[in-house]
């Protein structure tokens, strides 16, 4: 495929979740993996829900697919009936090799983007998502880092400069990039508070000890308070050699 990053857009398609305003334009430059899913209780066989709802759900997905394609994205789509929405999202991320997941909240025109840079781990993917989504737009990109106690100023500088360089290499105009450093605060609160002044947030999947989560607490909390679109960058998939 092209170097468009794949971004997962999960929608509970039968529960009134639709593509929020502004999101198609936000994702105009990427490969959208559109996941319509429907969570059913255990008493119901997934096939049973499929018999009844497939037509309606497919019609909606057709509309959404058209909206994304009109905005310029390439689209791939899935409709899944499941007892466990989280498992479905995790599996889809894995199977389609998605770089990030969108928490779909509405937005206007995106002029200011907040990019939370946590550490060197996963910074390559973070850069690729930022460059892929915002590289050809005019949005200003603010790299944001909350200093941890054992970090020196030098560490922070190396980290953020490194990120700027990477984005530059990926074709992002460096004059659009700003950096901002915060001290003595919990990263979560800091990000959520700062985000209020921005139109969109890009952040990493948080605690690496939790293997399976997307909307797991931190990103979720930010999204809840921020109310705008959040791109949650996924970790490098663990090597798959044990499976097969």
């Amino acid at each position, binding site marked *: 495929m092209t170097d468009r990053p794949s971004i997962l857009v999960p929608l509970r398609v039968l529960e009134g979740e639709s593509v929020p305003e502004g999101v198609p334009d936000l994702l105009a430059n990427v490969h959208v993996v559109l996941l319509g899913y429907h969570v059913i*209780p*255990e*008493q119901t*066989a*997934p096939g049973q829900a*499929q*018999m009844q709802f497939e037509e309606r759900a497919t019609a909606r997905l057709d509309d959404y697919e058209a909206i994304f394609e009109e905005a310029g994205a390439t689209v791939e789509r899935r409709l899944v009936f499941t*007892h466990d929405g989280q498992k479905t999202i995790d599996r889809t991320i894995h199977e389609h090799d998605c770089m990030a997941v969108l928490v779909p909240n509405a937005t206007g025109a995106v002029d200011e983007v907040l990019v939370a840079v946590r550490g060197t781990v996963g910074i390559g993917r973070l850069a690729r998502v930022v460059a892929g989504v915002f590289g050809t737009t005019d949005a200003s990109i603010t790299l944001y880092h909350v200093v941890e106690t054992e970090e020196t100023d030098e560490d922070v500088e190396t980290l953020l400069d490194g990120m700027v360089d990477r984005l530059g290499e990926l074709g992002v105009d460096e004059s659009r990039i700003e950096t901002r450093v915060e001290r003595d605060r919990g990263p979560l609160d800091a990000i959520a508070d700062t985000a209020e002044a921005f139109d969109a947030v890009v952040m990493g999947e948080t605690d690496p000890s939790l293997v399976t989560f997307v909307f797991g607490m931190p990103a979720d909390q930010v999204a809840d308070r921020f109310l705008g679109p959040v791109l949650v960058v996924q970790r490098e998939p663990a090597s798959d050699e044990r499976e097969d």
Partner: protein
Amino acid sequence: MAEQSVDVEPAGQNLAGEAPASEPEGVTDETTVHDDDVELERTIGLVGGLAIGIGTMIGAGIFVFPGLAASNAGLAATLSFAIGGLIALLVALPTSELATAMPRSGGGYYFISRGMGTAYGSIVGLGLWLGLMFASAFYLVGLGHYASAVFAELGVGLPFSPVIGIGLLFGAALTALSIAGTENTAAIQNVVVGILLVTLTGFLSYGVLDAFGVFGRSSVPGQFFSRGYFPVLTTAALVFTSYLGFAQVATVAGEIKQPGRNLPLAMVGSVLIVTVFYVVTIFVATSAFGADRLGQFGETAMVEVARDFLGLPGAVAILGAGLLATFSSANASILSASRAVYALSRDALLPRRASEVNLRYGTPHVALLAAGGPILALVVTGQVELLAEVASFLHLIMYGLMCVALIVLRRRDPEWYEPSYRIPGYPVLPGIGALASFGLIVFMQPASIAIGIVIMVVSYLWYRYYAGDVTLKGDI
């Protein structure tokens, strides 16, 4: 993740002009794939599968049958349970092979309708639905006995026997809960099964040590075949209801993750585990009291055994466990019955409306009511042994036919039949499985056999009347 294709194309129409739903394009470890971009997620793992199997089975064999079995067969009831376990295992192996070749919802019904055609499929499918209702009713009556024993324990004297009333109450409550409840019941089921296994292991370990005189008591000596040889087989037929659960794992085969691995493990594993528990339970119970006295205690005999060993706390623990076990068995059976209705209506053997999903709760209310309603009528009869035997009869027909279906499929060897697990000992093992399943029926009470045959005939006539044009058989 190799995709397995399911190359079966059902055709025809039923009386209402409905055609069977189309088959999926393929099956992966994690999903069933339809039309390329529609997927059905698989969400039940090995532990979940085992919990369904064990949870469905253990309610009956341990908490309802020991007294009845001992009064029929004496100490040799142990052997009856072992025979039941052996037959279950002989069927569980072929079922595993079929399930890995066709991991779809509907279990035995699906295998037989695809392997042997719509007529056999209808008899088995409708029989499975009704059989599960008989089984649920049986568990609910058992639950009623345990709840009544709680009243007795509390010294509440009731002027009437509350057994049937309580059974009805729980039956209605379970149906209502299944329709309106959206809690994560599978997680609860896993915990319940865990608690039961731990409680029973502790209790039985004590009992075994006691039986061998470790605690210095002499156990009641009993002659093994105190009632003769024949009752061993009739008792095996009676208690076979304790082994119906493994097929329920196949009913949800469409939702099991990594079906090629987890289906055989869950089915064979649950049969082996419950067989061991059953045999040890009967051994311990008959050693404690001797078959005669045990028989007098009836459905709740295990409570008296526990009281004998551990006093009041033991009795309370087993009472609680008995309530939990019969409740979870009844619940699992009602849910399986609703899955059976879905499988039949998907294939146009029942009206499509029967598997309709409720918009408010997302649950199949028609199918659940179709299971829950008749159950109440059956509970009213209060006939533990009859309910159990009819349930066993209808399941045994299915078990025997599954073995036959396996032989048919292996002989014809159609291209689409590619099980990832193949049983050893073909054709002897499935042959014996079929003979043993049909053979066990002979030892049932005439009334149970008569009811079972009537249900089969009515099922066949229904098929001729309603869905005579529907073909479901795979291309073989």
